[in-house]
């Protein structure tokens, strides 16, 4: 805390020096400090670190070739706790950060939206911006939408819209079982699945609809027993983490022959778990990208990323986020969050895989092409595998951005 006094003194001297240098000084590149607020210790650390590395990699890439804007990403450990996140953001603001990025946990995201909105109200002229790269609760861009929040991941309704558009063309899907986690996200997946399947495939029978307590179930065998009894041919699940691994393990043990349509089959650790169960080409994932999309620049990026970071790209959306941030700052010719936010509304940008994406101004939700892929053995000489399993994601279908648009109830309150 003493450091802050020294820091201010130093800042004062620099300001003084700048005044002496006057207008003749060369225009140094503007610096944008980005605070990465996500779990960096405890159970969620591996996911958090994967995100942080991706952000830092993107900053590094930008700083190497962009003379006008320097990006600086600092990690803050929020321990996956909303209150702790607010404390860490406060620390980040102290050290000059004006942009907060976060993704793990919709509850944390909701807390940050709330905090940022109040902070900006109470500190005009010092606004901060919140860029959300992974929290997918639909409410965040509907009932809880906020001008200072932008979401770069498709929310769970969008993913379900894409998924059901895909299932629409698969007549072999007849009986669907829903297994989700008992919290806001799981409930959102479940209700979206029910509503959208009913609309797009009224013939499909939903033979089971289950919510299990979040991260509390030791053994999913009882659930799998019910799935088997129901005769389901497909399972739709938003489970992640151990709830995903345990579910697959129980399914494999019981010899369940059903397809799993998942949100997080590609999440950290999930590929390892799938490989263990030997459920080849039975696990599908809906996401904004995967390594083996047949688009050469994407492959180049993946290769360079793996070489530099030492792990695969789990978050293509972070790449998109950083590209859009730089683009918006360039258009606004400013690093002021207020200007960046303005420029970001309605912005169009090509994704990592060469497709158009756009930020809808009504609710600050990014729409991008979604891909459905399945996990199984691949030729590792030609394709990328996941988590060194020798298995990788293979494309099954893609849904372009405009086909993923879902309506929003957001009433955006814009600053005057």
């Amino acid at each position, binding site marked *: 805390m003493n450091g802050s006094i020294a820091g201010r003194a130093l800042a004062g001297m620099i300001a003084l020096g700048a005044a002496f240098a006057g207008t003749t000084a060369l225009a140094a590149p503007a610096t944008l400090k980005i605070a990465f607020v996500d779990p960096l210790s*405890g*159970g969620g650390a591996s996911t958090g670190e994967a995100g942080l590395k991706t952000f830092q990699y993107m900053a590094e890439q930008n700083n190497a070739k962009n003379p006008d804007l320097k990006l600086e990403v600092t990690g803050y450990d929020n321990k996956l706790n909303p209150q702790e996140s607010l404390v860490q953001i406060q620390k980040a603001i102290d050290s000059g950060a004006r942009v907060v990025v976060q993704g793990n946990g919709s509850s944390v995201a909701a807390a940050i939206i709330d905090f940022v909105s109040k902070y900006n109200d109470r500190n005009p002229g010092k606004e901060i911006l919140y860029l959300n790269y992974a929290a997918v609760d639909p409410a965040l861009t509907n009932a809880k939408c906020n001008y200072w929040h932008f979401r770069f991941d498709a929310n769970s309704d969008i993913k379900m819209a894409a998924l059901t558009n895909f299932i629409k063309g698969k007549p072999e899907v007849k009986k669907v079982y829903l297994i989700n986690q008992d919290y806001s996200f799981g409930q959102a997946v479940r209700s979206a699945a029910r509503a959208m399947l009913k609309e797009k495939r009224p013939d499909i029978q939903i033979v089971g609809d289950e919510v299990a*307590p979040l991260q509390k179930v030791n053994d999913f065998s*009882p659930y799998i027993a019910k799935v*088997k009894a129901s005769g389901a041919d497909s399972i739709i699940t938003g489970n992640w983490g151990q709830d995903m691994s345990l579910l697959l393990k129980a399914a494999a043990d019981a010899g369940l022959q059903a397809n799993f349509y998942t949100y997080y089959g590609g999440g950290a650790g999930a590929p390892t778990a799938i490989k*263990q169960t030997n459920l080849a080409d039975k696990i599908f994932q809906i996401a904004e990208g995967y390594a083996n999309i047949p688009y050469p620049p994407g492959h180049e990026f993946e290769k360079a990323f793996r070489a530099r970071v030492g792990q695969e790209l789990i978050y293509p959306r972070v790449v998109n986020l950083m590209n859009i941030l730089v683009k918006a700052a360039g258009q606004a010719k400013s690093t002021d969050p207020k200007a960046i936010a303005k420029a970001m509304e309605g912005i169009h940008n090509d994704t990592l895989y060469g497709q158009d994406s756009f930020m809808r101004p009504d609710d600050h939700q990014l729409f991008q092409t979604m891909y459905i892929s399945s996990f199984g053995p691949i030729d590792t000489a030609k394709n990328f595998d996941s988590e060194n399993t020798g298995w990788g994601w293979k494309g099954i279908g893609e849904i372009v951005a405009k086909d993923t648009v879902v309506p929003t109830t957001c009433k955006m309150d814009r600053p005057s």
Partner: protein
Amino acid sequence: MLELLIVSTLNGVLYGMLLFLMASGLTLIFSMMGVLNFAHASFYMLGAFFGYQISRYTGFWIGLVAAPLVVGGLGALVERYGLRNVHRHGHVPELLFTFGLAYVIEEVVQMIWGKLPVDYRVPPLLDFPAFTIFDTNYPAYKLFMLAVSVAIFVGLLLVLARTRIGLIIQAALTHPNMVGMLGHDVAKVFMLVFGVGTGLAAVAGVIAGPSLVTQSNMAGLLGPILFVVVVVGGLGSLTGAFVASLLIGLVQTFAVSLDVSVSSVAQALGITAQPAGGVLGDLWTVTIAQIGPVIPYLLLVVVLIARPTGLLGNREA
């Protein structure tokens, strides 16, 4: 429905036996030393991870034997160099010591093996479906788990009934105040009991590891349930621990298969009125499957109010 019943019963008994493997060690330790070992589930986790690590070099079977021995030895060391020093400060610091130990073990496991599940596999020898009822496979490995738990249960009974140390332990179970009169080797007996108790937890860990997920949070998931088992069964009662283990194993497994809520019962009875929302609305629609994991705690509170000594216990802590 019958299929569900049979599979659920098997799963429930299996889960119960796993719980008992741990609860028996916990009960032995508590009876002899008066310490409720908060870190007991952590030794279960260590068993799973050691089993995994050893199996990578030597195969599953050596891991099955070696890991519990290593963990038991570790447990004995913890007793000798940790718990024994805290003992003179009283029971609360002892409990707190094991509380801190649980915390540290989880951190160390995360440090060594990371936070993601490790690839601990069922040995190929047992990797086949044992039988199929109504086209549901029941894995042979699960039957093996059941067999191991039952074998250890029987072995434990024999040791308690037939050996000198068993008699001492039995005496201590019924007359905890007499432990001090065991003579000069009481310190060794404590160390042995702690080592064996943690070793039993490790056996549970080794055999559960490949079937469930071997991950750094497995202790945290199971720990609280374990306390429910020993407290509901009656602190210090082995039979009580056995009954409570099976009870909780079955209750938790069967709760999952019940999609019943107040609203569904009301509908079945032809009642259409329902609360508009709010807290009552939440209670109205929650299913038994959803509250499954809460049931053990509910059971704990109810049992302790009605019978503070637990189901089969005869002494209070």
